[in-house]
């Protein structure tokens, strides 16, 4: 278990991480969200023992990272931002090196290597110097390096940055398959990634925590959560829609002619709205219920 208490980090006068507290338990796949410069990477660097907190502390299984750095680092697999690697080494040499330094025995090393090479599909580039790899492959090598020792804690800083949609999907599936009973923390600024992979979302902005909950809870914060959007076949009298029980607000899109009805907090308006439409025989082409717009919430929370 990771336990973060009142974590702060300043660079000179600049406060990058400001009084952050949270716990992460096995089974949690935490999406660490925030605009650029929010302090995500800085927090991860403190989780992994690369940076020492200015104040506050990080504990793993009850032990402080800044005191027991090397022992605790054995439990962690870490992909730093930008997936740095020794460019002149081949993929195979590099993974060997990481396994060696991690103190894996020959047997563990061979098993670990062949497993990650399969999982991450690195067969074709094994003997290629890392400097000649595409961005996508470089990122995958970084990922392979992080999971080679089958760590209990996986910390990935923007694991899908720079990948094409297929590769993104691949990496997300991989993370999901790896994450059983583990602690996974991934930072990202891609909102869909969070609903796709994570069971917990944490949003930070300007170094402070702004939200901590499930992806569903995040969606529920959206004005669009359970909102109903209707496209009418031709102009109809819509003034009555606002009077429906539970409808809080209405917005008409001038270009498409679509009408969006927003529910009051905690209300479900689909039933009443369809009833109303039936009753007045309104000419409806299409109708859909929104599950919430994450970008909308994200802006609202972080601004």
């Amino acid at each position, binding site marked *: 278990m990771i336990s973060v208490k009142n974590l702060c980090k300043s660079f000179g006068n600049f406060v990058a991480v400001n009084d952050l507290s949270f716990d992460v338990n096995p089974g949690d796949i935490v999406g660490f969200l925030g605009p650029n410069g929010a302090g995500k990477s800085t927090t991860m660097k403190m989780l992994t023992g690369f940076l020492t907190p200015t104040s506050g502390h990080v504990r793993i299984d009850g032990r402080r990272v800044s005191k027991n750095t090397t022992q605790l680092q054995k439990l962690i697999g870490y992909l730093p931002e930008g997936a740095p690697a020794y460019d*002149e080494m081949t993929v195979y040499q590099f993974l060997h090196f990481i396994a060696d330094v*991690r103190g894996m025995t020959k047997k563990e090393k061979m098993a670990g290597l062949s497993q990650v090479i399969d999982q991450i599909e690195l067969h074709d580039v094994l003997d290629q110097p890392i400097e000649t790899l595409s961005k996508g492959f470089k990122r995958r090598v970084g990922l392979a390096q992080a999971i080679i020792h089958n760590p209990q804690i996986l910390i990935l800083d923007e694991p899908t940055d720079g990948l094409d949609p297929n590769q993104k999907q691949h990496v997300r599936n991989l993370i999901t398959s790896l994450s059983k009973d583990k602690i996974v923390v991934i930072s990202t600024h891609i909102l869909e990634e969070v609903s796709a992979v994570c069971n917990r979302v944490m949003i930070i902005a300007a170094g402070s925590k702004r939200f901590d909950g499930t992806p569903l809870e995040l969606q529920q914060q959206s004005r669009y959560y359970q909102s109903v959007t209707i496209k009418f076949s031709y102009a109809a009298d819509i003034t009555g829609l606002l009077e429906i029980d539970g409808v809080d607000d209405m917005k008409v899109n001038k270009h498409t002619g679509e009408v969006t009805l927003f529910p009051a907090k905690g209300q479900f308006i689909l039933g009443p709205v369809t009833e109303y439409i039936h009753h007045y025989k309104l000419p409806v082409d299409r109708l859909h219920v929104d599950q919430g717009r994450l970008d909308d919430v994200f802006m609202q929370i972080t601004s």
Partner: protein
Amino acid sequence: MNAIFFIARREFAAFFATPIAYVFIAIFLILSGIFTFFVGDFYERSQADLTPFFNYHPWLYLFLVPAIAMRSWAEERRSGTIELLMTLPVTSVQVTLGKFFAAWLVLLLALLLTFPIWWTVNYLGEPDNGIILAAYTGSWLMAGAFLAISMCMSALTKNQVIAFVLAILVCFLFVVSGSGIVLDAFEKWAAPGVLDTIASFSFLNHFDTMAKGVLALNDILFFMVVIGIWLYAGLLIIEQKKAV
């Protein structure tokens, strides 16, 4: 312990994966040849020893060792691999030692490759090879001192050029601190004790006897202490940068 070995092995291989080590060794060999045979009056002295060869080593190391050491930390910082390295379960001590031994080994290799000069002197006369071996050992030890200083300077910055220049500056101070210019400058106002202390830091003074083949314990200790202190200073800088 193993981690030191794996890190050193990687560093050593990295020297040869890029042209750095080859260029370094080539320049070292060419310059030692020039200094020994042309500048150092190897033939004119008509003595069967390698004193001219060893006498120029401090000056060769002054530029070449900072060149070998400048990337050690600076490049890790620039490329971000330092984050990878320092989040592996190894201590900064292990990383520092691994890096040091790898580069020191490259320096040893360069020294060993000067064997044609040794071979020449054996061909031409009958030198005391014990003395020559002692001088080689002393030279390698001194190279280690240059290296520890240069690595410490590399830990300060992510810019290799800055690391290089800083290293030359500091090494230069250690080389010349025993020379006439420096001592004259201090003579007018410094107490004799201070003067002796400054002179005692001089690489030239300590290497002088070694170059003649005398491995005195105090000279050996001097270089070992210098290596230890500067490696430790580099370590402190690395640790300090974690806390910023």
